[in-house]
């Protein structure tokens, strides 16, 4: 059963062209110059009921715009969105009765009042049957004992506590589909785990479809079986996460701060590295804004240790870091057809 059906979805925006600087700012007071931006360009996909899918993409990719069209905030320029039998922006109030939305960065609960009072207000808003309400509260308590938080005003909760409350609040009215936007942002590992467990369990019990938007690859990995990647307004990957993992799982970024390293030598370094370690996926060498050098290495092909040893022989290393590959780099790789 497809709960989400998106076909040829597009969204175009008119943006005011702004001139820079002093004089430009004065000019803009009277300007009427617009340009068209294709934020989302011809996206299509379907989602089955009960799936948890991850929505990824760099900033500015069109992710939020797509989610906004799916949640009924924006009207598409063309194409169709059908979720749970509704056209979101058309029948907003009816549609929204059966969905949930959770933002990592701000709460949907009432800020100044105790958590449990927020729940009571939600009960009234969604006209939740008292039996269902009690059932759900029991379910939440069985999973995670959050009772001690209930009488505390939301504003006094820590970020992690607030997120947990927001999440259970979103399941309270038994929605068919819930949109999570960066639910794990700024949280420590243990809370992240709690949140991931909570979402997984509730999805299992209630078969709620979950659309997760996140920059946190760890969370995406833990929760999602399927990934949708959006970049520059188009859908560039829609498929199994394992395949995806195989690609970036092997990648590491080696970051080094080198002693006495002028900007011009980056090409030299890149060339020598390329020659020394020639492989199917060449090592990318870049200089970051802070003066550090990043080398993106595919460990399946080249041992990071070897690259490090080589650099140490030629240069003096002041400091170094080893990181997992960033989403932006993954997306770039996918865009360049790595998965083909």
């Amino acid at each position, binding site marked *: 059963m497809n709960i989400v059906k998106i076909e040829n979805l597009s969204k175009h925006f008119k943006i005011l062209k702004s001139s820079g600087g*002093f004089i430009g*700012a*004065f000019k*803009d*007071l009277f300007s009427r110059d617009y340009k068209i931006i294709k934020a989302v360009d011809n996206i299509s996909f379907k989602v089955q009921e009960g799936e948890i899918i991850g929505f990824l993409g760099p900033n500015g990719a069109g992710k939020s715009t797509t989610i906004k069209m799916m949640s009924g905030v924006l009207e598409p320029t063309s194409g169709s969105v059908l979720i749970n039998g509704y056209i979101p922006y058309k029948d907003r109030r009816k549609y929204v009765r059966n969905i949930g939305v959770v933002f990592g960065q701000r709460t949907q609960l009432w800020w100044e009042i105790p958590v449990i009072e927020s729940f009571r207000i939600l009960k009234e808003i969604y006209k939740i049957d008292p039996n269902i309400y009690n059932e759900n509260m029991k379910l939440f308590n069985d999973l995670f004992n959050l009772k001690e938080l209930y009488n505390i005003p939301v504003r006094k909760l*820590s970020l992690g506590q607030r997120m947990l409350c927001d999440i259970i609040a979103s399941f309270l009215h038994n929605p068919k589909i819930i949109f999570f936007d960066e639910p794990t942002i700024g949280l420590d590992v243990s809370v992240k785990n709690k949140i991931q467990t909570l979402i997984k369990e509730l999805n299992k019990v209630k078969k709620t479809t979950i659309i997760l938007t996140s920059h946190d690859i760890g969370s995406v990995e833990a929760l999602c079986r399927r990934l949708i990647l959006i970049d520059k307004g188009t859908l560039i990957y829609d498929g199994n996460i394992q395949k995806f993992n195989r690609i970036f799982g092997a990648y590491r970024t080696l970051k080094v701060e080198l002693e006495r390293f002028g900007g011009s030598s980056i090409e030299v370094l890149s060339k020598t590295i390329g020659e020394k370690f020639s492989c199917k996926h060449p090592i990318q060498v870049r200089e970051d804004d802070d003066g550090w050098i990043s080398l993106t290495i595919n460990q399946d092909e080249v041992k990071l240790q070897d690259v490090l040893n080589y650099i140490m022989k030629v240069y003096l290393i002041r400091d170094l870091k080893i990181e997992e590959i960033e989403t932006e780099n993954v997306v770039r790789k996918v865009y360049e057809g790595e998965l083909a």
Partner: protein
Amino acid sequence: MKKYIMITRNSFMSSIIYRFHFFYTSLSNIFYIIIIYFLWKAIYRGSGGSINGMTFNQTFIYLALALSIFCLFKTYTDWEMSYEVVNGIIVMDLIKPIDIQLMKMFGAIGFVFYNFITVTLPALFIIIFIFQPGVITVRSIALSIIPMVLAFFISFNIDYVIGLTSFYTESIWGISIAKDTIVLLLSGAVIPINFFPDILRKIVGFLPFQAIYHIPLTILISKDMSIYDYLKFLGIQLSWAIVLYAVNRLYYSKAIKVVTVNGG
């Protein structure tokens, strides 16, 4: 010194970006002028030309000028500081190697300078050329420069006091509104002080507010002010300027100890 200039410039630039703010505020000012024109015309009807020593023209010009310079003396420093305290951003100001009072003042100068160019200057032109050429002479403009600067300084310090109070109470909404109302009423900006009943005039003489509007305005529209009167006015302004500045330095050293930062 350069860093203070930068603060002024930034403040100036961000003011420009609010394109509509400029339009709406201009509209609001125009309507205000219209209202006071008709209101005072009505007040003067059947009065025989002069009330409390001022003709309709004098009163109208006085109030129109008050509006023109209003934007020079309303600094929003109190709101800015309260906002920073409530949101915990005040720490950013406190850790900078810049004197906060000076920093806020130069920020206010930038903001006020923008208003000077976009509101005060055009308004002055209109008043001089359309309404009453001759009511403001070059001499009176020149004489009013220092009083205006002093008036700004006094007004800024009053706002700064309120801003410092936010270190104690976080939100200063009520205090600020009260301050704005009192300043406008007792400074002669809404009704010329000439109209005040005697007891009130006496009380107002002991308060700093008339140094903000009444003094610069009187100097601006006076035809031939004696040196004695001019110096007396300057003296009053200077005294208040010094007193308020001193109060702020003292207050700051107390208030800084109390800063609690929000958020977490």
